[in-house]
């Protein structure tokens, strides 16, 4: 159905939640509410981009000052882990976009499957990051600034590289973790029938957030793992 029906009357408890959804009384239609919510999410994403731009700026500054440390530092990273994680995040971005398409078409079973794949990809990303990257590196003494204790450093400023690395990827990993919580909530609500063709505002919002997490990694990956 192309028209979005905002009439709440006449709908019984047998109808799914998304059909019974009534927008806030200050909205004329569900569309108005949806559009306003979406602008709100975009504003939030703007602050997210600015948050990460601070880290990209730090990277640029220290790359300019100590190119040797950045070159040596990126040499410690294995592009294979970064590459796998890039693929994992790209797939998860695709599946959450597909999940939104699924609820728009009321394909509830497929929506659950796609959301679950997204969640598993997020978990996989963090598992690879912690088990193969953070863990061994921290144990070797490749740590943030003052905590740096790696005896085989080849340049003067390697601890600065590790500060940038842990801060940028760590804040990104925190976003992945928050995203996992949000996606888990989406799965729970979606199983209850909360999202459907006329109402899926929360899925759209979380979807946009998840894509921004992907977008940040698209830039972090080459800067940290590939460029030297």
């Amino acid at each position, binding site marked *: 159905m192309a*028209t*979005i029906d*905002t*009439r709440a009357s006449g709908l019984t408890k047998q109808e799914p939640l998304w059909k019974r959804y009534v927008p806030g009384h200050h909205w*004329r*239609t569900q*569309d108005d509410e949806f559009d306003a919510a*979406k*602008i709100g999410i*975009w504003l939030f*994403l*703007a602050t997210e*981009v*600015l948050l990460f731009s601070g880290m*990209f*700026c730090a990277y*640029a*500054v*220290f790359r*300019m*000052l100590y*190119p040797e440390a*950045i*070159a*040596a530092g990126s*040499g410690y990273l*294995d*592009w294979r882990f970064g*590459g796998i994680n*890039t*693929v994992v995040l*790209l*797939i998860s971005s*695709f599946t959450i*976009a*597909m999940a939104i*398409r699924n609820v*728009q078409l009321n394909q509830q079973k497929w929506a659950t499957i796609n959301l679950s794949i997204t969640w598993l990809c997020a978990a996989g990303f963090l598992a690879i990051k912690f088990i193969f990257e953070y863990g061994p590196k921290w144990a070797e*003494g490749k740590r943030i600034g003052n905590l*740096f204790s*790696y*005896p*085989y*450093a*080849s340049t*003067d400023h*390697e*601890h600065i590289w590790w500060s940038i690395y842990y801060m940028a990827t760590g804040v990104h990993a925190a976003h992945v973790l928050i995203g996992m919580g949000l996606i888990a909530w989406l799965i729970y609500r979606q199983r209850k029938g909360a999202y459907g063709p006329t109402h899926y505002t929360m899925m759209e919002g979380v979807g*946009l957030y998840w*894509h921004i997490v*992907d*977008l940040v990694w*698209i*830039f972090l*990956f*080459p800067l940290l*793992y*590939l*460029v*030297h």
Partner: protein
Amino acid sequence: MAHAPAEHAYDPKDPHGFHAHDHDHGHVIVSWQTLLAVLVALLILTALTIFQAQFEIHADKTWGWDIPGWVNIVLAMVIATIKGSLVVLFFMQLWYDKGVNTVLFLFTIFAVWLFLMFTMIDLSGRSTIVQWRGGEVVAGGSGVGIKREGFGGSALHVTVRENYIAEQGYTQEEFDKKLAEKHASHTRKPHGNSKDHSRVPTGLTPGLFSTGPWAELAEDEHTGKGKSDH
């Protein structure tokens, strides 16, 4: 939407029908073919960016080609920008969406650009604009000034190394051998002309590069006549 019959068009939230004809805006259902095509494009671009970085190392090791560093970073950033644009346009649907969201996003990118540019202008312009200030900046970033037991006085990595050697009871030769082993396993050796590999640091604060591998360069570029006789 075509005109609906009167009884269907009645809406208790909109009794006068102000919005009866624009209900179907803003909800685009992107086809799965489009989404899949974008994913495939993103994966191919990821492979491409990894390939170009690996190719530089391979060309250096095998044929001794010294590809300048800017080629690597420019290619990587161009590919990342294309990937990011695909995500924003199709996964985030800005291609189909209302213009206001695009304006918001572009303004954010503009703000990021301002932020990066003004920082870079500051860094690259230091001591070329106000030369007398250049000498006031102390050598930074090496951890010389760390206030912690057993630290301070020399660069952080030197302190860490000395402590480690003392702790393990290595002789210098033993340690040097281990050091060489550690760095032999690196997939990427420090680039041949690492001093100016990424960027020639002209115009930077002199004091910053007076120690370590920068010392030679600092003598070349920053301690010439005219800069210190203020």
